[in-house]
């Protein structure tokens, strides 16, 4: 009766081990819905990677609110990637956690404020990349360095955070420029926390900046890097034969032709039928988005459910926990209790169950 993520455990763990050993300095990223697996499972898995001797001594979460869920299960350092601000959950960190947390500082005033509140705070200094989300410009980096000097202590700088966009083409030119800025600002650190670099780019970065330590932050390609190890299924909850013109559903639509109505597990509460924009701006992709948005107006729309390898149509917009599919005459009709495949965006789906075999 559930939307289930089934994980081929051996294969998944094999992939995690392989990626971790090929990525020295790896910092697993776990945030949000835990890439579909859940934060606590991933935190335990990160600890397991550490216990395997693969050097995972730090993991990254997105927000301060995510800390409590992972802190008990992973025993190393905890990097919070959302920059520290003088409000919200950032100010409510348990004292017993304080020394494990590495903050991200993206503004001079925050450096001052954070270190005034917690003189022994550990932090990375984020620099503004071409993504322009958070981070210091060259000028504000100079200001932060001045703030650190004025505080007249040995602040615990843990490195520089560089959050790169998902650009095609090489990032190395941008990384070089940013590192040059860090050198110019005389920030006293030789550690770079970087995201979204390919293995080749990381290799080049390491050989060009051998006097720096590189910590690659990896989320998607770690947890979801081997899609073949993952299977998502919904359960067939009910099957009804439909005649042409018969009325069904919340909205009282009528069947355009004869077939079967399938009620399957998985609805808007799971994220089915909702999607995060992919960022694909092609005409085709935009047309597809329009078509999905116009679900009510015109006929049926493709669902993420597939039966015998064929993607099936939604009979009406997904309900909260279930969806209705239309199966035309002639197709094999699955039995109640059968599992059918669902294609989902893992970062936007909450599963009822995660089964690791």
């Amino acid at each position, binding site marked *: 009766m559930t939307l289930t993520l089934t994980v081929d455990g051996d294969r998944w763990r094999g992939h995690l081990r392989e990626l971790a050993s090929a990525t020295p300095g790896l910092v697993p990223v776990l945030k949000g819905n835990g890439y579909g697996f859940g934060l606590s499972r991933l935190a335990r898995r990160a600890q397991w990677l550490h216990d395997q001797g693969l050097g995972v001594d730090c993991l990254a979460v997105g927000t301060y609110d995510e800390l409590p869920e992972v802190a008990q299960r992973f025993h190393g350092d905890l990097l919070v990637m959302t920059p520290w601000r003088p409000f919200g959950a950032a100010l409510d960190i348990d004292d017993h956690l304080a020394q494990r947390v590495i903050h991200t500082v993206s503004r001079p005033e925050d450096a001052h404020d954070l270190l005034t509140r917690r003189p022994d705070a550990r932090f990375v200094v984020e620099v503004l990349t071409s993504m322009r989300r958070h981070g210091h410009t060259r000028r504000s980096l100079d200001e932060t360095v001045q703030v650190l000097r004025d505080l007249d202590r040995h602040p615990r700088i843990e490195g520089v955070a560089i959050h790169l966009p998902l650009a095609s083409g090489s990032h190395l030119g941008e990384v070089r*420029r940013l590192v040059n*800025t860090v050198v110019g600002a*005389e920030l006293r650190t030789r550690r770079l926390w970087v995201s979204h670099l390919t293995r080749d780019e990381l290799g080049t970065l390491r050989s060009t900046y051998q006097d720096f330590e590189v910590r690659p932050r990896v989320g998607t390609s770690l947890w979801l890097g081997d899609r073949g190890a993952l299977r998502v299924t919904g359960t067939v909850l009910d099957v009804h034969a439909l005649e042409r013109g018969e009325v069904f559903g919340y909205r009282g639509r009528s069947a355009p032709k004869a077939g079967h109505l399938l009620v399957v597990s998985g609805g808007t509460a799971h994220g089915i039928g909702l999607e995060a924009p992919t960022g694909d701006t092609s005409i085709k992709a935009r047309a597809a988005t329009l078509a999905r948005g116009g679900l009510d107006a015109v006929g049926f729309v493709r669902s993420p459910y597939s039966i015998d390898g064929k993607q099936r149509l939604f009979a009406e917009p997904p309900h909260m926990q279930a969806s209705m599919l239309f199966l035309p005459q002639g197709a094999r009709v699955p039995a109640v209790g059968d599992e059918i495949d669902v294609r989902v965006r893992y970062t936007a789906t909450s599963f009822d169950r995660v089964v690791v075999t």
Partner: protein
Amino acid sequence: MISVRPVPADKHLEFVRSRPSASFLQTPAWARVKPEWRAESLGFFRGDDMVGSALVLYRQLPKLKRYLAYLPEGPVIDWESDDLAAWLAPMADHLRGQGAFGVRMGPPVVTRRWSAAQVKEGIAEESVHRLDDVPPLERAATGARVVAQLQELGWREQSVEGGFAAGQPRHNFQIPLKGRTEDEVLAGMNQLWRRNIRKAAKQGVEVSAGTDLEAFHALYVHTAERDGFTPRPLSYFRTMYEALGAEDPDRIRLWFAHHEGDLVASTIGIRVGTHAWYSYGASSTEKREVRGSNAVQWEMIRDALGAGAEVYDLRGITDTLDADDPHVGLIQFKAGTGGEAVEYAGEWDLPLSRPLYAAFDLYMRRRG
């Protein structure tokens, strides 16, 4: 507010003299060494105070009255400044007014340094191909700030593939002399260098400064034939010797190493303030075993020390550390002196007229 205007050569020279050092390519005398280009001495002024200088060489575009304004290893300004725009914008305005379609300059700031030992290890290590593959001893903050500011201000870094392309070398080899004695500098050299210097003395090689430009040039042409490069004509050296010499009697010096009456090595040394350069060198094919080249270098280093120089500059190296690269011998020779490989910020262009600069850029690429 900084303003830029042309100044007479003597005022330019006076400013260069007031500074600890400047590149010899930024002295007013250098203009006379390059007569094929129109040259201009510029002063940077804050109020009435001259606070910077530049030697600009205008290189004309074929058939057009438009120029690339070239400032080799310059300008001489406060590169520590956090506001390079204040210096460079009025300079660019002036050059535009002179018909320049673009500016090329070589900020005389170091970005990275490597020790001689690191260079040596790099050559021995098979996985290391270039200086880039070796973690530097130092990354210079000033150099990094210059690079960051030039990028922000729209200057374009000129890539020098392989090191010795057009323009001035980006990587040089230098021996720091500041605060060191002769013995200390000698002790910093590798065993081979020290042995060769001793050997030359034992064999009776005598090194002296002199004025016989023809003798230097004859040996230099001989070296060019042996090593397969195109020699410059005697007239070039004559102009250089006379122009630089007229500026300051200690500016340029010819050096000769003789063995039993035979000239075995000869060099040209240049010094501006605290910076001394080994500029050109020549050596005989006969009698290599008496080590005239080592002897003449050692004498030049001693002379630089005696004159209060802080840096002895062996000039360009390529950035290769590949044992199979033909250029590596030159680096090995220079690295044997101890000292360090230094990387400069490189040459940077500012387009002033986009279409003309683009055409020029394309022309240079095709030619290259």
